[in-house]
């Protein structure tokens, strides 16, 4: 079993775990984390794809992963921000003074 195949399978595994987490997780925070795990699974798969034949790596999937990481970070930040705002709204102790 080559290391590329191992990476691909791990990536697929992470994708499936994340998908499962999104569906069954209760708290929104867990759903956001699960989305990130799914994303990381795809990134691992892309990195494995970049190194198909031995020595030299294909830089395009690496660039895709870098772009994807920034986008995933941005999406996570927005989701966390909305979650925190909702939380402050529902919790009177921490809520903003009206």
């Amino acid at each position, binding site marked *: 079993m080559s290391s590329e*195949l191992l990476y*691909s*399978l791990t990536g*697929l595994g992470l*994708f*499936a775990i994340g*998908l*499962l987490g*999104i*569906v*069954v*997780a*209760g*708290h*929104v925070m867990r*759903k956001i984390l699960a989305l990130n795990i799914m994303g990381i699974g795809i990134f691992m798969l892309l990195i494995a*794809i*970049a190194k*198909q*034949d031995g020595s*030299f*790596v*294909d*830089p*395009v*999937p*690496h*660039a895709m992963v*870098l*772009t994807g*990481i*920034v*986008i995933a*970070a*941005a*999406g996570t*930040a*927005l989701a*966390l*921000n909305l*979650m*925190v*705002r*909702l*939380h*402050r709204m*529902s919790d009177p102790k*921490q809520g*903003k*003074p009206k």
Partner: protein
Amino acid sequence: MFNQIDLEYNGPVNDPKASWLITLCSVLGFLIVLTLVLLNYDAHNAGLRPYVEGSLSSSGVTNPVTAVLLNFRAYDTLLEIAVLLIVVIAVLPLRNSKTSLVRCIEVTNHDLVLTSLQRWLAPAVLMFAGYLLWAGATQPGGAFQAGALLAGACVLMFQTGVYRVNYTSIMARSLMACGLAMFIAVGLALIWFEGSLLKYPQDYAGVLILLIESGATLSIAICLASLYSSLIDIPGTGHAATFESGS
């Protein structure tokens, strides 16, 4: 799935029947993909590697990933910086642009560990971010890594509450926008000079890429730092209280 946005419940799965059904479905779907990879569908031999290698010498940098990110597929990177800007706009408090970018506040109780970390670590991180930005042309590194490191340094500096940053000041907003603005300006200027969007002239490609990357690094750093500060309650600073000052 997202039918109820639950902020309180933190326990395990609450609907076993539905989740079992969905488990089954997703595992089945997963198995299809798995067989696809495992079975005899060979991957495409080299992907785009031969193309990248063929044009690398005229890209202005020698690191192939940087060449793809900032030359061959620079348009993607430009849009990606726009994605970051979207989140910053959505997260920033509506307006409080009167005060200046950074204010120092006298704090009486100094945390020794944090203060010394700031003194020793922050300059080193700053140096290293600069190095990463510079090294991106020839080896792994570049704007995003440098920007993330810089954002980390910012987070460290703002831990104690000695420095308060007003992310809505005109200065901060210009810094956040400068990465995208510089990218767009260079791209459009090259239409004028070279006849095509983002077509770097051979001799200046390296310089232009470094210019774009420097702008992007600054923007990314301050954007990430503002995203961080929007999420946390920094003790004593009342940062998050000004969160939704407009409503």
